[in-house]
C-alpha cells in the first residue's frame, strides 16, 4: 500500500521524531511511504482566525502536492479534521476546486485512524513500562470522530498501564491563536487540564495532536511536573524498539 505523509508544520519544525515514528511504523506494516516536498501547512491557523482567502491558498497548495496520493496520513487529528471537514466548505462556491477538495478530503486519515481502520492493525509488538493517560484533542474527537483507535493501539503496549483522564472531553485551552489572544482564559484551561492529569498519577501523557501537547507540556514544564509527553506514534515506536532489543538480547 502506498501512503503519502502529511507531516504538519508543527511536527516538521518542532517535533520531527513524531513524523519519523510514523514513517517507521507505517513501513513496518507494509506501507510504501513517500513525503511530497511541496507540502505546506493545512491552513488551519488562517481559517480559524477568519482569513479564509489565505486558508484557500494553503489548501490549494496542499491539494496540488498530494494530487497523486492514494492515501494521505497525518500525525494530527486536528489537521486531518481541517482537511476532511472544512476543505469542501472552503471551496463550496468554486466549481473548479470543489471536487478536488472533496477528493483530497476523502483520502486523508489521522495516523491511528489509518492504522486501525485501514491497515487493520490494532496491536503492535511493543513494550513500555509506565502509567499513561490519554488526552483526546477536541478536533480529533469531535471534528474527525476518532477516539477509540489511539487507545486500542496504546493498550497493546506491554507494560503500559493506560488510565482514564477525568473530564477527558474538556479542551486543553490551546485553540490556536486563542492561546495568545485570550491568554488569561487559555491559561486557566490548561491549568485545569494539568490538574486532571496529575490526579491520574500518570507519568506519561499521550495525545494525537502536537499542538495540544505543546500547550500542556509547556505548562507542565513551567510548573515543574515530571510528566513525559508523547505523541501516540512516538510512544508506539519507542515501545517497538524496546521490544525488539529485548527480543534480540533474549537470543
Amino acid at each position, binding site marked *: 500500500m502506498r501512503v503519502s505523509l502529511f507531516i504538519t508544520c508543527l511536527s516538521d519544525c518542532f517535533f520531527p521524531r513524531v513524523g519519523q515514528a510514523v514513517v517507521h511504523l507505517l513501513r513496518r506494516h507494509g506501507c510504501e511511504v513517500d513525503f511530497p516536498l511541496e507540502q505546506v501547512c493545512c491552513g488551519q491557523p488562517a481559517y480559524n*482566525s*477568519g*482569513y479564509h482567502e489565505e486558508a484557500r491558498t494553503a489548501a490549494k497548495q496542499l491539494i496540488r502536492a498530494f494530487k497523486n496520493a492514494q492515501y494521505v496520513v497525518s500525525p494530527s487529528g486536528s489537521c486531518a479534521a481541517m482537511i476532511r471537514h472544512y476543505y469542501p466548505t472552503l471551496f463550496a462556491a468554486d466549481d473548479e476546486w470543489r471536487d478536488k477538495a472533496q477528493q483530497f478530503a476523502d483520502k486523508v486519515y489521522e495516523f491511528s485512524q489509518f492504522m486501525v481502520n485501514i491497515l487493520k492493525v490494532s496491536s503492535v509488538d511493543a513494550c513500555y513500562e509506565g502509567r499513561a493517560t490519554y488526552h483526546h484533542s477536541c478536533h480529533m474527537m469531535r471534528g474527525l470522530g476518532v477516539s477509540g483507535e489511539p487507545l486500542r493501539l496504546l493498550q497493546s503496549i506491554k507494560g503500559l498501564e493506560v488510565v482514564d483522564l477525568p473530564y477527558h472531553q474538556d479542551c486543553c485551552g490551546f485553540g490556536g491563536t486563542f492561546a495568545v489572544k485570550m491568554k488569561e482564559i487559555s491559561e486557566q484551561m490548561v491549568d485545569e487540564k494539568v490538574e486532571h492529569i496529575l490526579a491520574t498519577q500518570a507519568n506519561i501523557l499521550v495525545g494525537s495532536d502536537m499542538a495540544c501537547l505543546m500547550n500542556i507540556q509547556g505548562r507542565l514544564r513551567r510548573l515543574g511536573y515530571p510528566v513525559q509527553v508523547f505523541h501516540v506514534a*512516538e510512544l508506539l515506536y519507542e515501545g517497538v524498539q524496546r521490544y525488539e532489543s529485548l527480543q534480540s538480547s533474549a537470543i
Partner: protein
Amino acid sequence: MSLSNPLPFKQRVEQGLNDPFLRQSLKNAQARFREGKQRAAQILGNLEEWRTRAEAIRHHTIEHLDYYLDQFATNVENNGGTVFFAETEQEAVDYLIRLAKAKQAKTVIKSKSMVSEETHVNKRLEEIGVEAIESDLGEYIIQLAKEMPSHIIAPAIHKNRRQIAQLFAEVAGKELPEDTSALTRFARHQLRDKFLNADIGISGCNFAVAETGSIVLVSNEGNARLTTTLPKTHVVMMGMERIVPTWEDLDAVLSLLPRSATGQKITSYVTALTGPRRENDQDGPEEMHVIIVDNGRSNALGTEYQSILHCIRCGACLNVCPVYRHIGGHAYGGVYTGPVGAVLTPILEGFDEWEELPYASSLCGACTETCPVKIPLHDMLIDLRRDEVDEKRSPGVERFIFRLFGTAMNNPALYRLGLKMAKHLLKPFADDEGFLNKGPGPLKAWTEERDFPAPAKESFREWWQRAGRYGGDPDGR
C-alpha cells in the same frame, strides 16, 4: 440591548477570572448539569433521533417563519388576545409603556423573560414610575443586586447564600439567616403581595404553538402561573423565533428542553395559555397582549447564521463550555451568555460593541456537540471571525502576518525558508533542554505561563531528504 457591563471585554474577563466563588459554583453547576444531561440522555436512549427530529422541526419552522407567525397571530386574535409585532427594542417597549399608562399601572410582576432583559423593560418602566418586580427567585435576586442574568436557565448561579441573605436583609431591614429554606420563605412572602397587587403580569414564552395560538411556559417555581393569571392584564414578550407549528412538534422540543438544561424529564410546571379569560372562566386575565419581537433576529434570516434562530434556550452549551466555566456569564457583556451568546449577540447587534465575542472560544466544539437542535455554534464563531476580517476589524499586525502566511503557502520554497529562519531566530532563546521560557514577539504571551519548544536541529523534511527516504533510522528521543 447594549452592554450591561460597560467595562471593556478584557476587564470583564478579568472580573470573572478573579472571582473564586463564581468559578467554583460554575464548576459545580456544570458538573451537575452535565451529569444530569448524560443521565437523561441515557434514559431517553435515542437522543440522536430526538435531536434530528427537533432540528428538522426548528429548521422547517424558521424556513417558513412568516407563515407560522401569521397563523399564530391570527389564532391569538381569534382567542381574544392582541398581537403586536415590534421590529425594534424601542417599538416593543413603547407598546408596553402605552399599555401601562392606559391601565394606569403602578406595579408590574414579571416571570422570567430573556426578551424583556434584552429590551431593558424594567429600567424603562421604572422611568415612568412603574415598579417592575421579578418573580423568578433567581431573577429576583439579581434584580435586587442590580445585575444581569449570568446563565440562561440559572440567572443567579453566581451568587452564594451569604450574598443572597445580605440582599434580602436590605429589603427586610433586618438580619436574615443564611439558610436556603428561610431565604426562599422570605422571598415567597415578599412576592405574594406583589402577585396580588400587580396591575400587569409580564411573562416570556418558551414556545408558541401556531395551530392554536397558545403560549407555553416552562418553570420550576410556579411563578409563571401566578404572573399570567392573577393580574388583569397579561403581556407576553417573545422573540419571533419561538414558534412551533403544532402540538406534536412541541412534544419534540419540549422533551429536549429540560433534559438538555438540567437533566430533568420535565419541569415542575408546564403551562399552556390560550387567550385571556373567557366569559365563564373563574379566573385569568381580562386582556392578553402578545408582543412579538424581532430586534435584530431577522438579520439572521436567509443567511448562513439562520440556524441560530433554532435555539431553544436550554443553556446546554453553557454547561459544557470551558470558557464560560472560567469567566462566567457577565464577561460576555450581554443578555445571552456562553457560546450561544457569543454567536447570537453580534448577529443581533453587529460587531461594534461585540468584536471580541467571536474570539472568546477555543473552538473545541463541545457546544456544537451538545446542542439539542444541532446548531453548529463553533463553526458560526469561525464565520463571524471571517466577517470581522472582511470588515477589516482584525488588528493590523495580524492581517500582515496572515498576508505573509498566504504568500508563503503559495510558494513552498518560501515556506521552507520561513521554517528555517524560525529555527535560527529562536535558537538564541532556547535553554539547554531545548525550551524557551522567555520568547520574543508573539511568543511573549505564550511564554509568560508556559515553556515553548525550540525548533528541532534537523526538521522532518531535512531528515527525510538526508536519511528518511532511504529507510534511515530516526533520531532517538
